[in-house]
C-alpha cells in the first residue's frame, strides 16, 4: 500500500494511529491526581511534539542519511515563521498560502546556502552553515527590522491590509474556517481529553512528512545518500558527482524546517528572530542524536522526549518534590529533595545535558538503539535464537560526517 512494502505499511499505520490517538495516550493520569502534572495531552505541547517532530525528521534526512552535520538549520525555521506571519499581514489569517509559500521560500534559501556550504564537508560544512545562520539571525535583529520587526517580533496589527480576509473571517489562524486554537474537551470520569484543531492539523502534516521521509529512506535516492555517508571518496572515484544529491538532501531538509517554522507561526501568529539563533539549531541536533540519527522514528522520539522534558520537568519544584517524598522521615525527605533539586525545575537543562552526554558516550544510536538492545535482550531470553540482522535500524559504525 502507498508504494511501501508490507512491513513499512504496518509501520506507517502504527505511526498514524499513535499520532491520531496522542491526545488520549498522553493523558494517562486522571485530572486532580498527584501525577496529573505528567500529563502531556494539552494542545500547546502536543503541537510542539508534531512541529519539532517534522523539524527533526527533515534534519535527519540531511544528517542521518548523508552525515553532513548542519549547525544552521534554525535559519530555515525562522524564515518559515516570518513568511507565514507576512502572509497573515497581507492576505488574511488563512494558514494555507503562508505554509505553501514558507516551504517554497525556505527551499530557495536552502538552495542558496546549500550551494555554497556543500563545497566543503566535515567540520568546515558545519562552520559554514553556522556562519550563514548566525548572519541571518544578526541581520534579522538589526538591518532587516522593516521585514522582521526586530526584537519585538513580527505580529499582525489591526492596520494590516489582509486583502483576502472577509468580514466574517476568524481573527486568529484558521484553515478555511477551522480555527486552530479551537478544541473539544471530553470529560470521561476524571480523565479530561482535549482534541485540538491545531494539533490535528500539525499531526496530518507530520504524518505526511513522515511518509515522505519513509519513501526517501527506501528510494534509490536514499541509498545514494547513504552511500555518500559511508564513503564519499569512493563515490567520487566511481565517476559520480555527489554534489547534486547532497544539495537535494539539504534543500529537502530545509523545506521540512521551513514547514515546521511555518506551523509554529500557524499555531501562534508570532515570529521572532530568536528562533534562528544557533542554540535552536543545536536543539534539533540534540533531538536527532538523542533519538537516533539515521533511523526513521528516532528523530521524532528525540523531539518528543526533549519537548516533554522542557515542559514537564521544568514545572517540578521543591513543593512537588516534598509532596512525593512526604512518606519519608523528615530529615531524609529534605535530603532527597535537596539531591533532586538541581536537576528539576529551572535546572532541567542540566539533566538534559547529562542525558545527552550519556547517550553520545554509551548509545551512539540514540534511544532507538537502546530500545532495540532491550528488545533483543528480551527476545534472546525467550527464544535463544540468533540475532536478526537489521541494517536499517542498526547502522554500522560508519563515520558520522563525510571525512
Amino acid at each position: 500500500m502507498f508504494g511501501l512494502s508490507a512491513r513499512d505499511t504496518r509501520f506507517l499505520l502504527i505511526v498514524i494511529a499513535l499520532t491520531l490517538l496522542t491526545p488520549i495516550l498522553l493523558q494517562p493520569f486522571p485530572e486532580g491526581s498527584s501525577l496529573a502534572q505528567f500529563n502531556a495531552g494539552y494542545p500547546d505541547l502536543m503541537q510542539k511534539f508534531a512541529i519539532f517532530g517534522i523539524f527533526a525528521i527533515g534534519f535527519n534526512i540531511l544528517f542521518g542519511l548523508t552525515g553532513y552535520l548542519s549547525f544552521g538549520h534554525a535559519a530555515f525555521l525562522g524564515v518559515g515563521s516570518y513568511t507565514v506571519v507576512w502572509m497573515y499581514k497581507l492576505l488574511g489569517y488563512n494558514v494555507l498560502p503562508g505554509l505553501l509559500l514558507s516551504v517554497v521560500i525556505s527551499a530557495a534559501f536552502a538552495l542558496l546556502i546549500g550551494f555554497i556550504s556543500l563545497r566543503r564537508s566535515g567540520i568546515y560544512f558545519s562552520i559554514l552553515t553556522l556562519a550563514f545562520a548566525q548572519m541571518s539571525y544578526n541581520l534579522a535583529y538589526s538591518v532587516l527590522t522593516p521585514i522582521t520587526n526586530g526584537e519585538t517580533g513580527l505580529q499582525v496589527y489591526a492596520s494590516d491590509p489582509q486583502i483576502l480576509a472577509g468580514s466574517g473571517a476568524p481573527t486568529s489562524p484558521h484553515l478555511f474556517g477551522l480555527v486552530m486554537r479551537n478544541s473539544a474537551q471530553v470529560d470521561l470520569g476524571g480523565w479530561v481529553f482535549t482534541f485540538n484543531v491545531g494539533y490535528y492539523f500539525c499531526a496530518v502534516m507530520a504524518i505526511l512528512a513522515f511518509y515522505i521521509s519513509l519513501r526517501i529512506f527506501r528510494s534509490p535516492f536514499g541509498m545514494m545518500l547513504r552511500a555518500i555517508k559511508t564513503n564519499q571518496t569512493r563515490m567520487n572515484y566511481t565517476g559520480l558527482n555527489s554534489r547534486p544529491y547532497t544539495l537535494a538532501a539539504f534543500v529537502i531538509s530545509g523545506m521540512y524546517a521551513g514547514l515546521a517554522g511555518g506551523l509554529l507561526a500557524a499555531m501562534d501568529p508570532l515570529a521572532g528572530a530568536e528562533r534562528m539563533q544557533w542554540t535552536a539549531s543545536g536543539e534539533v541536533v540534540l533531538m536527532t542524536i538523542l533519538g537516533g540519527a539515521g533511523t526513521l522514528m528516532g528523530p521524532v522520539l528525540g523531539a518528543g522526549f526533549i519537548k516533554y522534558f522542557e515542559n514537564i520537568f521544568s514545572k517540578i519544584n521543591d513543593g512537588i518534590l516534598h509532596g512525593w517524598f512526604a512518606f519519608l522521615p523528615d530529615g531524609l525527605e529534605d535530603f532527597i529533595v535537596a539531591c533532586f533539586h538541581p536537576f528539576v525545575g529551572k535546572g532541567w537543562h542540566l539533566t538534559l545535558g547529562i542525558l545527552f552526554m550519556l547517550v553520545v558516550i554509551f548509545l551512539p544510536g540514540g534511544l532507538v538503539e537502546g530500545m532495540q538492545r532491550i528488545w533483543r535482550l528480551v527476545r534472546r531470553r525467550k527464544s535463544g535464537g540468533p540475532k536478526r540482522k537489521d541494517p536499517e535500524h542498526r547502522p554500522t559504525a560508519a563515520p558520522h560526517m563525510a571525512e
Partner: protein
Amino acid sequence: MDAIILQILNGLDKGSAYALIALGLTLIFGTLGVVNFAHGALFMIGAFCAVTMQRLLSLSYEEIDPTRTDFLGNPLKVEVPYVEHWFGPDLGGAIIDWSVPLGILLAIPVMIGLGFAMERGLIKHFYKRPHADQILVTFGLAIVLQEIIKYFFGANPIQTGAPAAFSGSFDFGTLLGFDPNVIIYPYWRMVYFLFSLVIIGGVFAFLQFTTFGMVVRAGMADRETVGLLGIDIDRRFTLMFGLAAAVAGLAGVMYTPILAPNYHMGMDFLVLSFVVVVVGGMGSLPGAVLAGFMLGILQSFASMNEVKSLIPGIDQVIIYLVAIVILLTRPRGLMGRKGVMED
C-alpha cells in the same frame, strides 16, 4: 587617522580574547585531534574563578564599631572582611581591590585540574570516534558545565571591577601627538592586551624552546613515530590539554572587568572562536592568533558609523562573511598546514 587608530585599539581587546580562546582550541585540535566544543565553557569557568576569588576575599564577619552608632543610637555593626582583619585595612583593602588579577592564582590550578579531568575522564575515549561525536559530547559537556555554574552563581551577570589603579581611561592620542581627548582608551583593555601578548608569547616560547615543547611539536607532526621512539606522548598531550584549558581560563579571568561574566558567555565566545580557528587554519597556532586579532579589529572597523552608513548591518555579519569567503577561497584557512583536515 585618529579614528582608525581608535578602532584598531578597540578591536585589540576583543581580538585578544578571540586569539587566546582560539589558541587553546587549536592546541587541543593540533595535539589530540579533538574538536572541543566545551572550550567556551572553560573560558566562562575562568571568569567565574575571578568571581569566586572576589567572593572569597570579601568573606567578612560582623564587628561592633564602638566609635559609631546607627540611627537608633545602638552601637553600629560593621562588616569587616577577614582579609582586612588579618592584614590591616590598608593591605587588606588593596588585596580585595586586586581580586581579579589574584583570581589567576585560583584559576591556574582549577583550570589545569579541570583540563586533566576532562581529558582523562572523557575526551580520551573519543580519539577514535568521528569528529561529529567529539563535537556532540563536548557540546553536551558545555551545557552541563554552564548549568552547574548557573546553579551556583545565578543567571544574572555579576559585575567584577578592575583594580582602582586601572579603572580609568587614559588619553592615548597625546602620546602620538594627536589633540587631547581624541583617542581615549580604558587602562584595563590595555592591560588585557598586554596580558594576552604575554600568554601567547609564553605558550610559543614553551613550545619552541623547551624539550617538552619540542616533543609536543614532534607529536603534532607525527604522533605514531614519536610514540615508536619510546616517548609517552599521551601523557604530554594530556598536559597540553591542561595548558590549553588554563589559557582559556586565564583569558576568562582577566576579561571579567570588560564584560560582567554570566553563565552563557562561553557559548557566545565559542561560536566566534571556532570561526577564528577555521579562518586561521585548523591546527595552526600562529594562524589562530593572527585570525583572532584580525577579526577583532575588522569587527570594530565595521562598527564605525561611516562604514555602517555605507553598508548597513555590516558590523553584525563581518566575521561570518570573512569566514565564508576564506573557507571558500583558501580551503586550509590562512595558515593551515598541508594535510590537516583538508578534505
